[in-house]
């Protein structure tokens, strides 16, 4: 199940970018329920730049590539999402440093680093009703599937399922971080836009993964 790391990373980033741009309105509407409505806009504008500069990114290795993506996102996305997502990509890049191949374990290590980055930057923990509440359980599921020896498509599909379930579950939580936390109890009852964003992105990966890596996976 070991693969070239750069093409996989490129594929993932491209899918995330595409998904962010396609779902601008949906993500924005989610943020408008109790937030300020700009989550879709911020993400779309940032990933548009990623798409625009796509060909110019240094592709020496996966780590360099991810760092370039992180810089575009951190520098040019405003709102809370720019620093958070940029930090996540940067931390993932650090884990990828020196690696030219990777497997599910590599993915889990990169995602865990991203999660720690978000926790540190946002001063947030699991259960605070943020994107972490989808990203962390989905990452755990990848680790679990790896233990079971599942193939790529199965792993990603399982992670997407968990991400979606967890994102839906955020509706029960009271927000403790971010703009929505100001509203206190009134945040209960609606899902966290960041968590749903993560779920939608995992689902997009699950939908396209088999086609892309056809024949390449174990």
């Amino acid at each position, binding site marked *: 199940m070991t693969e070239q790391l750069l093409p996989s990373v490129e594929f993932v980033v491209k899918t995330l970018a595409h998904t962010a741009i396609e779902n601008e309105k949906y993500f924005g*509407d989610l943020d408008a329920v109790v937030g*300020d*409505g700009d989550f879709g806009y911020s993400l779309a504008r940032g990933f548009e730049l990623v798409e625009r500069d796509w060909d110019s990114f240094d592709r020496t290795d996966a780590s360099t590539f991810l760092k370039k993506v992180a810089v575009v996102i951190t520098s040019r*996305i*405003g709102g*809370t999402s720019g620093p*958070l997502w940029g930090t996540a990509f940067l931390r993932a890049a650090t884990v990828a440093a020196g690696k030219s191949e990777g497997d599910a374990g590599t993915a889990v290590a990169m995602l865990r680093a991203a999660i720690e980055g978000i926790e540190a930057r946002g001063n947030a923990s699991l259960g605070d009703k943020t994107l972490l509440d989808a990203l962390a359980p989905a990452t755990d599921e990848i680790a679990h599937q790896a233990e079971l020896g599942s193939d790529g498509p199965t792993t990603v599909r399982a992670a997407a399922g968990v991400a979606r379930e967890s994102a839906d579950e955020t509706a029960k939580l009271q927000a403790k*971080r971010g*703009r929505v936390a100001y*509203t206190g109890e009134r945040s209960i009852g609606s899902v966290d836009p960041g968590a749903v964003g993560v779920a939608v992105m995992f689902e997009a990966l699950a939908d396209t993964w088999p086609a892309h890596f056809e024949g390449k996976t174990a």
Partner: protein
Amino acid sequence: MKKFVNDPNQYVPEMLTGVALANPDTLRYVPEYNLIMRADAPDDNKVSIIQGSGSGHEPAHVMSVGKGMLDAACPGDVFSAPPMDYVLETSKMLASPKGVLHLINNYTGDRMAFDMGKEMAEAEGVNIETVLVDDDVAVSDSTYTVGRRGVAGNFFVIKVVGAAAEQGADIDELVRLGNKVNSVTRTMGMALTSCTPPAKGSPLFDLGEDEMEMGVGIHGEPGRRREKLHNANEIVDELLDAVVPDLPYKQGDDVALMINGLGGTPISELYLLYGHAHEQLEARGMHVRRNYVGEYCTSLDMAGASLTLVKLDDEIVNGLAAPAETAIRTF
């Protein structure tokens, strides 16, 4: 969407173009960073004062650039903190031997952008200090949130710090002054209607014809509670009851009173609110020594208002009374 807009993505740059064209002699516009700066900044003998924050709150903060006010503003998109890059480049362009002061409204996004931008600019040799503005009493300061929000009271911090900077005060002195003004400033706002971000094209939330939102945020965030619509005097009383006991403002205090419009409320209504607020404060034994009625920090086209009190002493009054110029001129 009943708005003057071309491409929603160009809303902020097109507005900034207008501001720049209206002030050809005094302002400089750097489109890459949504940057509006004084044409004569940076000044080696003056601390440069910078503010970021999202757009949609005009005249805050980009139209507060001018002599005795901000040296530069680098707003983000509508309701979005500026990207870190804007903060970094603005801090570098405004670097002065006397230092750069970041006046930050206390929101997660703004703080992250300014924290990261500060770190990186400092690495390039810029000397930066920070003052946080968090005057909104609608939000209770808990360990969970980033704390109170910065809203219309921001104006008073800019005005007093800006006046002192103009007179050559050192950066530590500005930090002291800024924190002091912020510490005696309290605001509470309420909305009669929602607002419509250009990129969204529809109202951020729904308010019934007979409802109002008490303690609303300036980004359309819901507030303390939704209530039945009250008459103007009752609304003022409710705002005063939230603001006055918070500091608390006491009998015998000299205060500045601001009635700030949130964007869609005409100035006639603001003066109507002002009249009652003034009378109520005097009735409670406070003396309204300075007043401010108009739009200072808006939420796009939201109909609504906020009420700000500042406890005055001579130092603050002098700063408030000092001459200043801004990007928006009536004459």
